[in-house]
């Protein structure tokens, strides 16, 4: 017993303090993968069955709704593209570095529950699909988290609400930069170091600032709930609600960072043969999806 106990304690300490066990973990996780897929299967099958049984009327209504949403999204996208072009021109005028678009690839959550004390989720893309540790994950509304552990077929993602997660953010309205920490509660992030005199209001939108190099800048993160200013303290504390549906999203997007300007296009095409989507070319994708009709 003592031998096994000591071995377990040593493993825990090594795993906690160093990254030495990560390759061991990745390879051994492959043995667990069939069981994870087996648990995921019923949920997926149930969804497929309910999809098959949906009434024709309901499907038509949903189709029409999606078409309307798509139309509105495309209108906004045209506006956005002219803004991007203007931004590029201004950057050139200011001799600032140009913004290189990264690549986007869709993934899905695997319906297994991980440890309830950590805010982690499992996605069905792994090192075989080019996923790397530290990769950002977003959903349709905003930032969800970062990839922590990569196995051949799956990857574990730490959500922004995890107490160990810290995200460099920027206030969209004022440009103030700060860091948002996870609190361990799903709907809450905390910003503990806001200068007491800063212009921060409830309802302010937080976006990624791009500092630290992990997340591309400008992606929505959270909305400020309340700001607590205690007289006499140097800093105000703000609480924010993440905009991503951390506990509900099924389809998520993995982001590949912008590489250096000369080889970004080549690398993207070589490494990812089943073509991801470049953020700047979204209008092309929309046209492609319309074509089969």
């Amino acid at each position, binding site marked *: 017993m003592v031998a096994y106990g000591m*071995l377990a*304690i040593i493993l825990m300490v090594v795993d906690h303090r160093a990254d030495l066990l990560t390759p061991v973990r990745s390879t051994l996780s492959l043995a667990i993968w069939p069981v994870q897929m087996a648990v995921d299967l019923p949920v997926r099958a149930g969804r497929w069955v309910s999809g098959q049984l949906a009434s024709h009327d309901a499907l038509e209504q949903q189709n029409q709704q999606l078409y309307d949403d798509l139309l509105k999204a495309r209108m906004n996208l045209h506006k956005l593209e002219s803004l991007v072009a203007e931004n590029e021109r201004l950057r050139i005028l200011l001799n600032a570095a140009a913004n290189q678009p990264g690549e986007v690839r869709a993934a899905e959550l695997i319906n*297994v529950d991980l440890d309830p004390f*950590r805010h982690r989720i499992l996605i069905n893309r792994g090192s075989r699909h080019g996923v790397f540790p530290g990769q950002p994950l977003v959903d349709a509304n905003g930032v969800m988290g970062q990839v922590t*552990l990569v196995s051949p077929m799956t990857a574990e993602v730490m959500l922004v609400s995890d107490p160990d997660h810290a995200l460099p953010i920027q206030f969209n309205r004022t440009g103030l930069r700060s860091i948002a920490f996870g609190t361990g509660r799903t709907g809450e992030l905390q910003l503990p170091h806001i200068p007491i005199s800063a212009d921060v209001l409830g309802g302010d939108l937080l976006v990624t600032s791009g500092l630290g190099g992990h997340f591309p800048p400008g992606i929505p993160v959270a909305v400020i709930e309340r700001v607590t200013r205690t007289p006499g303290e140097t800093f105000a504390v703000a609480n924010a609600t993440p905009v991503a549906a951390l506990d509900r999203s099924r389809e998520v997007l993995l982001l590949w960072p912008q590489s250096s300007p000369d080889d970004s296009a080549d690398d993207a095409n070589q490494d990812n043969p089943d073509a991801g989507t470049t953020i700047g070319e979204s209008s092309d994708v929309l046209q492609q999806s319309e074509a089969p009709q």
Partner: protein
Amino acid sequence: MSRYRRGGGLALVSFIIGLALTMVPLPDNVELLRPYWLAMLLIYWCLELPEKIGMGAAFVAGIAMDLATGTLLGEHALSLVIVAFLVRRFRLRLRFFPMWQLTLVVLALLMNDRVVTLWINGLRGAEAPSWEFWIAPLIGAFLWPWIYLILDRARQRSATA
């Protein structure tokens, strides 16, 4: 097939099913109430099949659970090794306990495991868990007689097959 009849194969299958049950998604508010399936299965197999299922099996099962749930490698291994050790130590007495007394023993073991988990999580810096954390052993103890009966029935059927 004689190995299966002696129960080793059935033990492996039961552990895999226990692992699957540990991973089945539950709504957020009841997630902490999930019973410690692998511990209960381990208690059963340590009582019934001590020559095959010992602390080595407990360690491997714990590592498998750590891999599956994304916890520190060795966290559940330690808790299952402690459970296996206690069961083996008191096995000769436990074997002849009536079902209700055995259920109380299972409750005690699961509660002890909760304390160990709380300690490990505390060392890691996690915040104190809510009250549901302490309810999970009660649910586990409640399910124990059923697990015992199901596994006994399965063993009988595989022995006479």
